[in-house]
C-alpha cells in the first residue's frame, strides 16, 4: 500500500474542495470520468480507441494534463498499465472500447489480479437501453471480468461516474493492490452532469488492516528468537507494501537468511550475505534447501503459490509459519499459519522488531546456508566456439547496466534465466508475469516501465515465442521514442514446454518448435526500431554497447543454444529439497 493512499484526512478533504473548484467545468459523464482521473493524479493512460468509448476520448481532447498512449492491441495496453503500476507504485490506467476492446483486456486484468498489481481499466459499453440485447460490440464486461478483478462496477449514472472512477482507483491502490474496472455505457458518458468528482476514496466499509494483533506479534517474535534455523520468505507484498527497508533492517539485525519469491526479486539485495535468492520450481538449490530445512519460516506478503511450495506435503515440513499478509484470505489458505499476522507489511515488521526479545542463535544455520551456496552455485558451461549461452547474455547485460536498470520479461525459459542470472539489488526493477504466466508480457511491460521511470534503463528479456505474441507493440515504442532494449533469447521454440516434453513426455515435441520464425532484427527495423542479430559469444559486449547507445528502441535477436535448459528444477508437485541440477538428476527423480 502506498503512503499516499490513506483514509480521508482533513488535508484530503481540503484537496477535495480545491479539486472541485478547479473542475467546475464538467458538463458530461465523460468529462467527469476524466476529472475523476485527474483528481487521482493520473497523468497517463494506455489505450485503444473505439466506438463506445469515444465520448471519453473526446473529453481527453481538451485535457493536456493526461497523456494518452495508443497501443497496438488492448492486451498491450493492459500490460503496459500493469507495469506502470508496479514501477510507480500507484495504479496504471488502461482504456478500451466495449466488446472486443474489453475482452482483449482480459488477459492483462487476470495477470494483474494474480500478481496483485495496481491497475484501473476503463471500458466503453453500449448505451444502457441496448444492454442485454446483444447489440453491436456488446459483451457482458462486468460478468466476464468479475472473477479476475479486485472489484468492478457498471456506471449507470452520469452524476456518479466521476466518483466511481475515483473509487476504482483508490480500491486498486489501497490494501492488497489489484486491478479494478469501470464499465462506461455510452449514454452515461454522453449524459449531462455538472457534478465534479472529489478526490478518490474507497467505500467506508473497506478498511484494510494496518497493525497486527499484539499478542500474536509477541508470540511470533518469541518463536523467531527461539528458532535454530529461521528463514524469511519475502513475497511480492514486501514490494507492494514498500517494506523493503524494514525487511532489510530486520534480517540484518537478527541475522535471519532471506529467500525471495519470484515477484519479490529486488525486495532484498541479492548481493547481501544473508540473501539466498529465489526458491521454488526453478529456485536456487540453496534457497530450496533452506526453505525445506527451516524450523521457522517468516512469510511476508506471499500467497504460497504451488510453483513456490512444490508438493504441500514436503514444503517446509518442520517449520512453524509466521505469516504476515494484508489480506486475511491468504492466511492458512495453502499453508497453515501458526502465527497469523494480518496487517501492512512495513508496520508489522516494525511491530515484530519491537517485540523481539533478542536475536536467534543461528550462526551454525547461517554457516550451513553458506555451505549450500558453495555446493550448489548457479552454474553453466560455456565452451568456446559453441552456441551462445542465454545465461551469459543475461549476466553480460547485468554487468553493463546500472544497478537500477529495470528488467521485464515474457514467460518461459528466458524468464527464468533473467530471474536467476541477473543480480537484483533494488525493488521495482523486476517486472514479470508470475501468477498467470502470460507469454507476451515482456514488450508492453517494458513500455509501461519506461514511461513510469524515464530516467532508468529498461531491458526486456523476451523469448521468441513471447515476442511473437506482442512484438507489434515495438511500433509504440518507436512512436513514443522510448529508449528500451529488447533482448530475444531465441531458441526457435516454446522452450519451457519443450523442456517439459523432453523431461516428462519422452521427448515428443508436439507444437513446441517453430519450423520457421521471422528474422526479428529485420522485423524490428520494419517497425522503425534498431535491429541486431547476435550469434557469437565474442560479439556480446559490442552488441550490448551498440544497443544501449542507440537512442530509441532496439531489438537484439540473440540466437542461443537450443539445447540449453533451465536448472535447477523441481518437478511440479515435487519436493523442493530434491531439486535436480541437470537432466540426469531430473530423470532420476521420476
Amino acid at each position, binding site marked *: 500500500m502506498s503512503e499516499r493512499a490513506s483514509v480521508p484526512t482533513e488535508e484530503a478533504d481540503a484537496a477535495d474542495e480545491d479539486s472541485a473548484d478547479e473542475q467546475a467545468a464538467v458538463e458530461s459523464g465523460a468529462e467527469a470520468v476524466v476529472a475523476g482521473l485527474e483528481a487521482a493524479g493520473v497523468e497517463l493512460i494506455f489505450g485503444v480507441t473505439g466506438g463506445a468509448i469515444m465520448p471519453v476520448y473526446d473529453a481527453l481532447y481538451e485535457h493536456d494534463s493526461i497523456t494518452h498512449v495508443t497501443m497496438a492491441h488492448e492486451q498491450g495496453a493492459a500490460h503496459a498499465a500493469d507495469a506502470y503500476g508496479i514501477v510507480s507504485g500507484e495504479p496504471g490506467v488502461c482504456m478500451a472500447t466495449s466488446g472486443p476492446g474489453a475482452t482483449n483486456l482480459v488477459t492483462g486484468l487476470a495477470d494483474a489480479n494474480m500478481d496483485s498489481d495496481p491497475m484501473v481499466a476503463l471500458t466503453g459499453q453500449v448505451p444502457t437501453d441496448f444492454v442485454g440485447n446483444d447489440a453491436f460490440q456488446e459483451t457482458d464486461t462486468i460478468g466476464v471480468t*468479475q472473477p479476475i478483478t479486485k472489484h468492478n462496477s457498471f456506471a449507470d449514472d452520469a452524476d456518479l461516474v466521476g466518483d466511481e472512477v475515483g473509487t476504482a482507483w483508490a480500491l486498486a491502490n489501497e490494501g492488497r493492490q489489484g486491478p479494478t474496472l469501470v464499465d462506461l455505457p455510452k449514454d452515461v458518458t454522453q449524459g449531462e452532469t455538472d457534478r465534479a468528482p472529489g478526490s478518490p476514496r474507497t467505500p467506508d466499509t473497506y478498511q484494510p488492516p494496518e497493525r497486527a494483533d499484539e499478542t500474536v506479534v509477541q508470540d511470533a517474535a518469541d518463536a523467531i528468537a527461539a528458532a535454530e534455523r529461521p528463514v524469511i520468505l519475502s513475497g511480492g507484498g514486501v514490494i507492494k507494501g514498500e517494506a523493503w527497508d524494514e525487511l532489510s533492517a530486520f534480517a540484518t539485525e537478527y541475522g535471519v537468511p532471506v529467500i525471495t519469491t519470484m515477484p519479490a526479486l529486488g525486495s532484498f539485495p541479492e548481493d547481501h550475505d544473508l540473501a539466498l535468492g529465489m526458491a521454488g520450481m526453478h529456485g536456487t538449490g540453496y534457497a530450496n534447501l533452506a526453505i525445506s530445512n527451516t524450523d521457522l519460516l517468516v512469510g511476508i506478503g506471499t500467497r504460497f503459490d504451488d510453483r513456490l511450495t512444490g508438493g*504441500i506435503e*514436503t514444503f517446509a515440513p518442520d517449520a512453524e509459519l509466521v505469516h504476515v499478509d494484508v489480506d486475511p484470505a491468504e492466511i492458512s489458505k495453502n499453508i497453515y499459519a501458526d502465527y497469523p499476522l494480518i496487517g501492512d507489511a512495513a508496520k508489522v515488521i516494525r511491530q515484530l522488531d519491537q517485540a523481539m526479545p533478542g536475536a536467534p542463535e543461528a550462526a551454525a544455520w547461517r554457516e550451513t546456508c553458506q555451505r549450500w551456496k558453495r*555446493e550448489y*552455485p548457479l552454474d553453466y558451461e560455456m565452451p568456446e566456439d559453441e552456441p551462445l549461452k542465454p545465461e551469459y547474455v543475461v549476466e553480460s547485460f547485468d554487468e553493463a547496466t546500472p544497478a537500477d536498470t529495470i528488467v521485464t520479461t515474457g514467460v518461459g525459459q528466458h524468464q527464468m534465466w533473467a530471474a536467476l542470472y541477473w543480480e537484483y539489488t533494488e525493488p521495482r526493477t523486476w517486472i514479470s508475469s508470475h501468477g498467470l504466466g502470460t507469454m507476451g508480457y515482456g514488450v508492453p511491460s517494458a513500455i509501461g516501465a519506461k514511461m513510469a521511470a524515464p530516467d532508468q534503463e529498461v531491458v526486456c528479456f523476451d523469448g521468441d515465442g513471447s515476442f511473437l505474441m506482442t512484438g507489434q507493440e515495438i511500433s509504440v515504442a518507436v512512436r513514443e521514442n522510448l529508449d528500451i532494449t529488447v533482448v530475444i533469447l531465441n531458441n526457435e521454440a516454446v522452450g519451457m514446454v519443450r523442456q517439459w516434453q523432453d523431461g516428462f513426455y519422452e521427448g515428443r515435441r508436439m507444437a513446441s518448435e517453430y519450423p520457421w520464425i521471422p528474422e526479428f532484427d529485420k522485423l524490428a527495423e520494419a517497425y522503425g526500431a534498431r535491429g541486431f542479430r547476435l550469434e557469437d559469444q565474442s560479439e556480446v559486449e559490442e552488441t550490448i554497447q551498440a544497443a544501449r547507445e542507440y537512442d530509441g528502441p532496439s531489438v537484439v535477436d540473440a540466437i542461443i543454444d537450443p539445447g540449453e535448459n533451465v536448472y535447477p528444477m523441481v518437478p511440479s508437485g515435487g519436493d523442493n529439497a530434491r531439486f535436480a541440477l541437470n537432466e540426469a538428476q531430473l530423470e532420476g527423480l521420476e
Partner: protein
Amino acid sequence: MTTGELPGPTPDERDLPAGRRNAQGIRIDPEAEAEHPPERAVLSALVEHQPGVLAEISGLFSRRQFNIESLTVGATIEDSMARMTIVIEEPRPGIDQAKKQLEKLIPVISVRELAGDAIQRELVIVKVDGHDPDKVNAITDMYDGTTLDAGPRTITVQITGDEQKIDDAIDAYAQFGIREIVRTGYAALARGEAPTAQVTQPNQAPTEAQVATQEVSDD
C-alpha cells in the same frame, strides 16, 4: 559464470527433513488427528443491495469450489442492504476460507458464521396427488403446515421448519406421490441479543475468536 568447487549431494543423497504436511498445509503431528471431516456451517452476510452482488457471491463459491447446500437472499430494513444466508458443507479450513473470501468482496459489508443454536428455518411447498385428501390433511396438521391449494387431483401444502422437520414431512408425503416440490433454502438469525452480522464490523481481519476457531480445528 561460476564454477562449483564443492559439488553438493545429488537429490537422492541429500539429507531430507522428516516432517510432512497434510493437504490443508497443516504440519502433521503423528500423535494428533489431521483429518478434517466436512461440517455444515451457516454463514450470514450483509451485502450492498445492488445489481450483480448475487452473481458475484455465487460465482465466488463456484470458482473456489466451495460446496453450497443453500443460498438465500432478501431485503433488510435498510434499503441499501440485503442479507444472504449461505449454508455450506466443507472441512473446517474450507469454511474459514469461504468466510475470508466472502469478507474480501467489496460489496460484502460483514460476514458471520452462526452458532449451532441459531434460528434456522426453511420453507417447502409440496404438490401431492389428491386422491386421499384426509390423510394428506392429517400429515399437514401433524407438521403444522398449511394447505395452499386443493383440487380434485392435487393438493399443495406448505411446511416451515428446520432441515430435519422438512425432510421428515417430505418422507411422509411421499406415500401419496409427490408431483412437484420447491424448497426456499435457509433463512437464519443468531439467537438472543447477539447480532447476526452487523455493519460495524466491515471487512476486517479475522477476530481472535476466528483465529481461535482455526486453532481448535487443528487439535
